[in-house]
């Protein structure tokens, strides 16, 4: 089944819903649920961001402002409800309200920033991002500086005993919204606007000559993206019951860019993949290495250079083959295994080397002892350095041998798939 066919099939969405539903059974601990909630939020934000980058071709360095400002609004609203300043609004529907707040901001900011695409848009988004970040630090009464503001999601009536006090309940809230938002965003890609959004991305000049105001299309895309980002931001605020300036700053904007691009901008599933993977990696990688930011950066740059379609792009590269005959994929298995094994060997060497350098320059104790792959080693000793270098060199040599092999098999299989189609 093709990518489009796949998502048009209700079965896939039901499986997605099922996954969201069943996650708390194996992952019921507070920490695991918190990661799972974070994933759903990341999925919504990444999909919203991809409406801009993937669908609309607009690269933003400041999109987190729509995420964060909705979060600030939400916490304030929770607190106002607690104080009785504002009328009661069901907590489970707050994401809608937060989304609308971001949408209004999106209308205003989009009005000036979407007049042009490309670098101009990127720079304006950077400017707005920096200004809003600065404001969160300066206007203390609303944003409360770097400490941010806290709220309690346990307010108001308790329909069916749902208080959102427990982690599971709030996870399901986030999961439900994630599902709804994903369906909505997928549906939007199948509308006239969705199609024209792609048209404006690919060829803005031509789009004008079929009657579309490209600025209006970008503006609308920007506004809708802001709306969904606002939903994500609200969920974030509800899950963590806190927002701080790190929800609006450039690091958050950069991070969602990483997620979307690593996952793949070209397909609807890409950002979902990126969001889940990166959220998971950030929560576990930091336990094993201090240099995880570096590995992140390297993965990102590698993908920009060699796989601009992202991970999803790599997967859907095989679409013509499995559409033709899934059995053909079997012939790619062992070359892929070989290629992957060589990469792994090379990585073991290179990562080992990098970890040692990292430790060497960041070790303030002067003892230069560390644990690498389960071995306690001294960095004064040349042996580990040499071993890692040798492993790395062997890996690279294997890569040189195996990559052409992978390419050769890939072309063969593709060729055969094409032949069969033409017959």
């Amino acid at each position, binding site marked *: 089944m093709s990518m489009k066919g796949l998502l048009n099939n209700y079965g896939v969405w039901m499986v997605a819903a099922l996954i969201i539903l069943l996650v708390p059974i194996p*992952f*019921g*601990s*507070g*920490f*695991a649920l*918190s*990661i799972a909630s*974070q994933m759903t939020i990341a999925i919504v934000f990444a999909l919203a961001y991809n409406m801009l980058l993937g669908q609309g071709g607009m690269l933003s360095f400041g999109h987190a402002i729509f995420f964060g400002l909705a979060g600030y609004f939400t916490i304030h609203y929770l607190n106002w409800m607690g104080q009785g300043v504002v009328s009661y609004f069901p907590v489970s529907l707050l994401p809608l309200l937060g989304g609308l707040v971001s949408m209004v901001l999106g209308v205003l900011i989009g009005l000036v920033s979407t007049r042009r695409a490309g670098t101009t848009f990127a720079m304006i988004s950077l400017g707005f991002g920096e200004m809003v970040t*600065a404001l969160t*630090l*300066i206007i*203390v009464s609303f944003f*409360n*500086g*770097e*400490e*941010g503001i*806290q709220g*309690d999601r346990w307010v108001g009536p308790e329909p069916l005993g749902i208080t959102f*006090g*427990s*982690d599971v309940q709030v996870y399901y809230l986030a999961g439900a919204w994630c599902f709804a938002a994903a369906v909505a965003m997928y549906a939007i890609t199948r509308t006239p606007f969705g199609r024209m959004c792609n048209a404006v991305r690919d060829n803005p000049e031509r789009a004008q000559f079929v009657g579309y105001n490209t600025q209006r299309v970008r503006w609308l895309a920007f506004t809708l993206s802001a709306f969904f980002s606002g939903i994500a931001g609200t969920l*974030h605020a509800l899950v*963590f*019951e*806190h927002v*701080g300036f*790190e929800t609006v700053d450039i690091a958050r904007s950069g991070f969602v860019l990483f997620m979307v691009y690593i996952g793949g901008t070209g397909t609807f599933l890409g950002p979902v993949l990126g969001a889940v993977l990166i959220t998971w990696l*950030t*929560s*576990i990688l*930091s*336990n*094993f*290495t*201090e*240099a*995880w*930011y570096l590995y992140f950066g390297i993965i990102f740059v590698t993908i920009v250079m060699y796989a601009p379609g992202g991970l999803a792009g790599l997967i859907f590269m095989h679409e013509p083959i499995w559409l033709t005959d899934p059995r053909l994929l079997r012939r790619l298995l062992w070359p892929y295994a070989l290629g992957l094994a060589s990469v792994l060997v090379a990585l073991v060497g290179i990562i080992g080397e990098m970890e040692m350098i990292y430790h060497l320059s*960041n070790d*303030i*104790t*002067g003892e230069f002892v560390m*644990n690498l792959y*389960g071995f*306690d080693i001294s960095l004064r000793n040349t042996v580990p350095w040499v071993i890692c270098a040798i492993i790395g060199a062997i890996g690279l040599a294997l890569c040189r041998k195996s990559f052409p092999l992978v390419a050769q098999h890939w072309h063969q299989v593709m060729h055969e798939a094409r032949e069969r189609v033409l017959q």
Partner: protein
Amino acid sequence: MNTSYLRKLLLGTLLGGLSVLPAYAAEPVRLGLIEPFSGPIASIGLETLDNFNFAVEAVNKRGGVLGGRMIEMVPLDNAMNAEKSTQQVKKAIDMGIRVVVQGVGSSNAINIIEYVNKHNKRNPDQTVLYLNHAAVTTEFTNELCSFWHFRFDANVDMKVAALATQMGRDPKVKNVYLINQNYAFGKSTQEASNKYLAERAKHIKIVGDDLIVPFGKVQDFTPYVAKIKGANADTVLTGNWGPDIIRLVKAVASAGLNVQFYTLYGGLPTTVNAVGTEDGMAVHMKQVTEQLVEDDDRKDLQPYFESYLDKFKRTWYSDRIRFTVEMFAKAIDKAGKEDPEAIARALEGMTFPGPHGQTMVMRPDDHQIQLPMVISEMSRDVPKRFIYEGKDLGIGWKTMNWVSREDLTLPTTCKMERP
């Protein structure tokens, strides 16, 4: 990071569902240390971990707590992110840890306080205790005070009050210029400075009061230098930290201004290292700390400091880490069990020997430690010089004077809710 830690971590992640593991007598008492161990300021977190491990080792060498159980620090990386801090508390709870320790970053601290409050209310049989060793926002022990939170560091008001007291004693200080960062911490430093200078140093005139955009955004401090000069200030009082103080000091020194710096955080080893001792001396850098390891009245602790210096090639800086651990050990022994509520009650009102023959008290009203503070000045003429990263910087800290615990006992607005 060692293998046993990794293994535990894996186990912890796997067994996350079984949150409360039965405690064996031999099983260590684990403290979850939630600090940045990755990202731009990981060095601070890692140094904190070293220091806690060192302090814990001393307790363990004496035989541990609760009749032979060792204390173990479990590092939990929050990457200096508020949300990750709460996540790590959850993880600690999943791992069966009942006490978390944190200090770097007020935003992380407030999240932990709020989360621990909510968690303990929602899960009264699985409570958690939070020991704060460095987050200084005064509100944490005023409006935001919590039974589950204990602060072992002086708060902003106490530090500023200490500096103001000393400035009042210093006849050279006549015109003071305030420079602070334009965010919550900087603004509360600014307010406290205005308040305590008016109260404790009446002869001093505040001739300038600036807020700057924080966190390294200001590259060029020359215009501020010009304003300091123009205002005829002889002293700068600043709560700036990181690049915001490094650049300020460098700019003032390079302009040859003859002013002295009273700082909250100018003495941080990384800052001193980056500013360079020339510039540090040029601005007569002063700092406020809970004590000075070099001082004679700490003779009893000198072996402790020396062995730290031997091991890590740097001078012991944050003594509060030592007494956080020591007081915790004393409290858990007094409580007789690893139970957060019992430990908290044991900590309330606990005393501990401090510098200059004074005792420190954990005030039960707000869980803010009450302690004397020492004001010291950067100097070349010191018996023991400051060592950092194995390097003798050629300077040290010389105690100018100290401010008694009584002088720093400030009223609290805390209305403590006890379980």
